[in-house]
């Protein structure tokens, strides 16, 4: 993770502090207290546990090991902070290669090309505190909207998403920003889905497969290569080549989506991929 904003840096910020501030702002905005607050904290820990669980089935993942709820909570207690070591993605070394080609060429190269159906990006203020909404990433909201429009795909058709989980908070908030959950409710869906986790979040009666490669948390976060790794996962899933972690969607899995954020939400990129062209 990098701290791109000079003002935050001059004031003493760390990359991790922004995530914790967003969590504090989230708790305040949605007035979470008592049991709700406890469940939010557990839900965030479950995001980490879930991502590690997925990574154990990914031969390319950086951390192919199990992490328990207790491990995540203990790490927070050790740090004496709302988020601990196991809530954050690492900074990793890694590389990813994508071969992009026109439809004609792609169809010559492979029997099962994956099509770029839609894409979009958006930019916000570099300084996180200067943004109007401290609890969400406006860039995600803008980018997903126009990417879906371009792809002519509805949000309900999306079951496979690779989110940019630099922290567990980011995965939770992104579920809301993408539009899968109402603002202030994603933690509830995560909490309930993870009571007996079966490989997906259950959101609005629908299966949502999130970060099947282990996410940035467990697959690794090689910065510039991260988006490539996320795309690679969607590519494999859409081609049904993901082996043990191949998702079992309701109906056919023919679209997937990648969200990448830059500089704590300064820029957001959304790509919608499909196994069939529109």
């Amino acid at each position, binding site marked *: 993770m990098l701290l791109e904003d000079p003002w935050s840096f*001059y004031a003493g910020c*760390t990359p991790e502090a922004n995530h914790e501030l967003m969590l*504090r702002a989230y708790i305040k905005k949605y007035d979470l207290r008592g049991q709700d607050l406890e469940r939010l904290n557990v839900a965030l820990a479950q995001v980490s546990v879930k991502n590690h669980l997925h990574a154990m089935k990914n031969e390319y993942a950086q951390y192919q090991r199990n992490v328990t709820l207790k491990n995540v909570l203990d790490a927070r207690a050790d740090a*004496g902070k709302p988020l601990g070591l196991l809530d954050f993605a690492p900074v990793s070394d890694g590389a990813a290669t994508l071969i992009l080609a026109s439809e004609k060429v792609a169809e010559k190269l492979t029997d099962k090309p994956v099509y770029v159906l839609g894409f979009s990006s958006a930019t916000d203020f570099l*300084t996180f*505190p200067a943004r109007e909404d401290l609890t969400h990433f406006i860039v995600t909201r803008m980018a997903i909207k126009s990417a879906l429009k371009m792809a002519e795909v509805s949000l309900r058709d999306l079951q496979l998403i690779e989110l940019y989980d630099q922290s567990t908070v980011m995965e939770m908030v992104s579920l809301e920003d993408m539009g899968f959950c109402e603002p202030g409710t994603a933690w509830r869906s995560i909490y309930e889905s993870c009571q007996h986790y079966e490989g997906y979040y259950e959101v609005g009666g629908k299966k949502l497969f999130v970060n099947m490669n282990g996410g940035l948390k467990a697959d690794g976060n090689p910065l510039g290569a991260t988006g490539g790794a996320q795309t690679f996962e969607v590519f494999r899933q859409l081609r049904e080549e993901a082996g043990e972690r191949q998702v079992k969607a309701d109906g056919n899995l023919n679209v997937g989506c990648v969200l990448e954020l830059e500089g704590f939400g300064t820029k957001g990129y959304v790509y919608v991929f499909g196994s069939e062209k529109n």
Partner: protein
Amino acid sequence: LSSEPIERRVSYLGDRLRGTRCEICGKEYFEIRDYCGNCGRKSFGRMVGSDLFYEKGELEVCTLVSEPTNKFTKLGSYVYGIVSFHDGKIRVPGRLTDRMIKQKEKIDSSTLEGRAVVPRFRRRYSVEKCDIIPTISLAFTFADEYYPYQGYRAAGPKKEYDVPGIVGYGFYSSRFRIREGSIERAIPFIDEDSITAAVEAGKLGLIHSGVDNASVGKIYVGSESNPYAVKPIASKVAQVLKLGEESDDDVQGVDAVDTEFACKAATSVFKDAASLVDYPKSNIQNAMVIGTDNSQAAPRDCPGGELDLFVGYGAAAYVFGKTDLIAEIEGWYSCTSDTPDFWRRDGEPHPMHGGRYTGDPAYFKHVRKATVKLMQRLGLQVEDVDYFVAHQPNAQFPVKIAKELGFKEEQYMPSLQVIRFGNTYSGASPVGLAAVLDVAKPDSRILVTSYGSGAGSDAYSFVTTSQILDKRPRQKLTVKYQAENPFLEHVDYTTYRRLKLGM
């Protein structure tokens, strides 16, 4: 170090905390912007500056940073958060300063959030000896603790005086202290130094005097602990406080100068400031004099280490003018001799001291001469003087000379602040004067005699006016308030040395 233009831009915006407001929709930005994101092209030319330097903010959310980025590691753990101004219209990142957080100390963010905070002018972080010292006001303290919120309202001059004098003053010292025996001494926090103290004192001086910052045409900053061997600090103070006429090019129309003349670097130029504002063609309405020091001393077991028992930290600022005076200058007398009882050779980290040589032939000889000569010149008797302020390097010297000159306890005790703040070098006699001005009634005569080692003495006679009472409520940070504050934090010797050196 970032490139020079960026560094300058950062200091213009960050030292003073400036933003921009759209005149059309009222949206505010913490950055200089030519147009508004909401209003687009039509807002071009309609963006006005917004100033947060004297504002009160609210700590919206915060968290503990226990493993800071590289340049901040010397600050240890600290609370970092988001501060909002103008009911949330403008938000800035901020660090809570003046808090020492112990290892493994738990911070409950919810107990800190929602509280009012005041921007403080501090070092941004620690740098190597050869680097420029970066400063910023993205450091905050709680308004209900040591440093209360005080608004700044510049009012036009109401009353003119025939002679020049003091229009207002401010004294600043940190909330950290070391207590050894009967003496308590102030210590800078790790992000403070003589520059930050000078700015704080100057800010308080402007608040108290009520003069428009643009009316201050000259600033003198006297110090023996300029953190630079070569680089002025008065320019930084002038820029942060926006002294003198301001134009769009961010160059202040003020004459700024550093003075270094032992412990009388500030008092020496009281008369220059007064004369300047009195000279009709100077075009200078007000002049500011600041005495500031993070008083230097070698560690106790080293040569010169005896000073380590007395050194303090603080700054006092005085605004001189000819309108709305709180005290008129009645006269002065200065004397000089080359009596080198305190010195620091170039390249040496700490000053040396003349030991017993510093008493009779140095301090007493000069203070005695300046005081007696001034009293003779003005035809004053001891009983004509309400308060006597002598330079205070320790608690004994000023008492001894006051007694010798015939002053009584009620005349010299109110000024004796060295036992509260330590020897503040260039700020030592000015803080004594501030303590007296805090309590003096109108028509009181105050005699101040400073002393600088190897420099000499200045004696001044001031007579307070009735306006001293009008202005008194403007100053919450009085000398007594800072001396007897319930939020003072006492540290041990090791921490004291670390803070003093900014390490």
